[in-house]
């Protein structure tokens, strides 16, 4: 592990935090977009390591979390059918719909299978020609090339018993929805590293310019997040608002052209509902008309299913950075990872699940920096000193 030291060294972290303290003149609210970043921040106590006036709020970048309840209910309606093999990424299985989850359906005799890659569904479809194989194609831009390839291969190879239930969402329209809200608090973004590995970051430049917000594409290791936070803070303090790339060792401005080409060949942009947030115009992908035979929503007649979300859940405000998980009366009591009420508790990458996993529901009276594991970076916590 010879490469680790340089990036996890407490001295480097301390220098970055010291520079934040040196330049910061007023309070700022930054949002990390990606659920992996949220997980890393909470696990490592980064939000308590940085100066007190720099607040990190947690964004909507957890694909499992933002898949709308309505779409989960559609998935379940299809998975319950006797002639269907329903395939999904593992973390969708325990996401509750209006009535139970995919595990429940499996236990009642439904043929529900976990796949590692969407391409596994091709093998399953070929091996089971008398069954309809349906894949739950969820995700952000990172996952879109994989799901596009499945649709493309099914189409090209004329695999007639394979279709996709598509619930794809896009990061840039979500950032715009957050910035447009009257109660928005976010003044700068840590952009999602692996989404930009696919898409590049040019599409963020108009957003940064229009709303005058810095956007710094950032990795998810503790030092990456500290560095991205510092870069964002520097822009804010210098009254600049541009897109910068903290994660240049992994990605460039243009992303992966081959992946984008197939994604655009298979999908077109459409309005999408986001769990907890609601409808965001032009914020997701659907299959193009040419791929209608691969479109499970058309084949299985589930378009009429409409579902409301539980009223007590405040995940919509959490996903937009208005509130934190411990602001919710249900957090850790009525709502737990075992019995999630809403978006941000359903996946390990959701903000509520991350707070729960690292014990932030257990000691509400204790200063948070004592609960967080800031020590893992070898740096004293930033709060209260």
């Amino acid at each position, binding site marked *: 592990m010879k490469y680790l030291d340089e990036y996890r060294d407490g001295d480097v972290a301390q220098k970055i935090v010291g520079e934040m303290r040196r330049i910061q003149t007023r309070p700022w609210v930054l949002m990390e977009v990606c659920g992996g970043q949220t997980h890393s921040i909470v696990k490592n106590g980064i939000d308590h390591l940085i100066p007190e006036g720099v607040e990190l709020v947690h964004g909507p970048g957890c694909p499992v979390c933002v898949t709308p309840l309505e779409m989960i209910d559609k998935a379940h309606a299809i998975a319950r059918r006797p002639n269907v093999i329903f395939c999904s990424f593992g973390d969708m299985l325990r996401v509750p719909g209006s009535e139970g989850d995919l595990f429940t359906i499996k236990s009642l005799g439904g043929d529900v299978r976990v796949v590692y890659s969407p391409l*596994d569904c091709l093998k399953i479809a070929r091996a089971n020609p008398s069954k309809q194989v349906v894949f739950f194609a969820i995700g952000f831009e990172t996952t879109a090339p994989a799901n596009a390839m499945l649709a493309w291969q099914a189409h090209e190879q004329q695999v007639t018993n394979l279709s996709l239930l598509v619930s794809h969402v896009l990061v840039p329209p979500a950032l715009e929805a957050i910035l447009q809200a009257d109660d928005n608090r976010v003044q700068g973004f840590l952009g999602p590293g692996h989404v930009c590995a696919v898409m590049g970051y040019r599409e963020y430049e108009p957003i940064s310019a229009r709303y005058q917000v810095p956007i710094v594409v950032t990795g998810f290791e503790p030092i990456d997040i500290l560095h991205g936070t510092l870069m964002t803070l520097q822009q804010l303090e210098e009254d600049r608002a541009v897109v910068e790339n903290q994660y240049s060792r992994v990605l460039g401005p243009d992303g992966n052209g081959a992946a984008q080409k197939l994604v655009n060949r298979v999908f077109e942009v459409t309005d999408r509902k986001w769990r907890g947030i609601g409808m965001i115009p032009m914020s997701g992908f659907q299959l193009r008309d040419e791929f209608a035979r691969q479109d499970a929503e058309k084949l299985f007649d589930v378009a009429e299913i409409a579902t409301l979300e539980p009223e007590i859940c405040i995940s919509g405000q959490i996903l937009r950075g208005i509130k934190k998980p411990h602001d919710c009366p249900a957090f850790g009591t009525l709502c737990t990872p075992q019995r999630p009420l809403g978006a941000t508790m359903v996946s390990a990458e959701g903000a509520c699940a991350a707070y729960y996993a690292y014990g932030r529901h257990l000691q509400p009276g204790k200063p948070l920096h004592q609960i967080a594991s800031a020590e893992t970076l070898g740096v004293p916590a930033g709060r209260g000193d």
Partner: protein
Amino acid sequence: MCLAIPGKVVETFDKGGMRMGKVQFGGIVREACLEYVPETQVGEYVLVHVGFAISRIDEAEAERTYQALRDLDQLTELESPVVEEVEPGGFRQ
């Protein structure tokens, strides 16, 4: 599942017209589609998301990212069942 996992390409082959590879992640080897990084050679490192390589990275970055993901318990997708290629009716998982 929003993150990609780095691994080393240990074999490349064609399947159904797609460029594929076997990619080693720590002690686990899984198939990955290399269509989006077609220039990748055996011995190189790639970031893999749900069975698709989305970008090429160097060894140092691969090692660092792998360690970070392990710390975050974000490697569980690698343990998903392997779907075998079998003839119709003979599927097993």
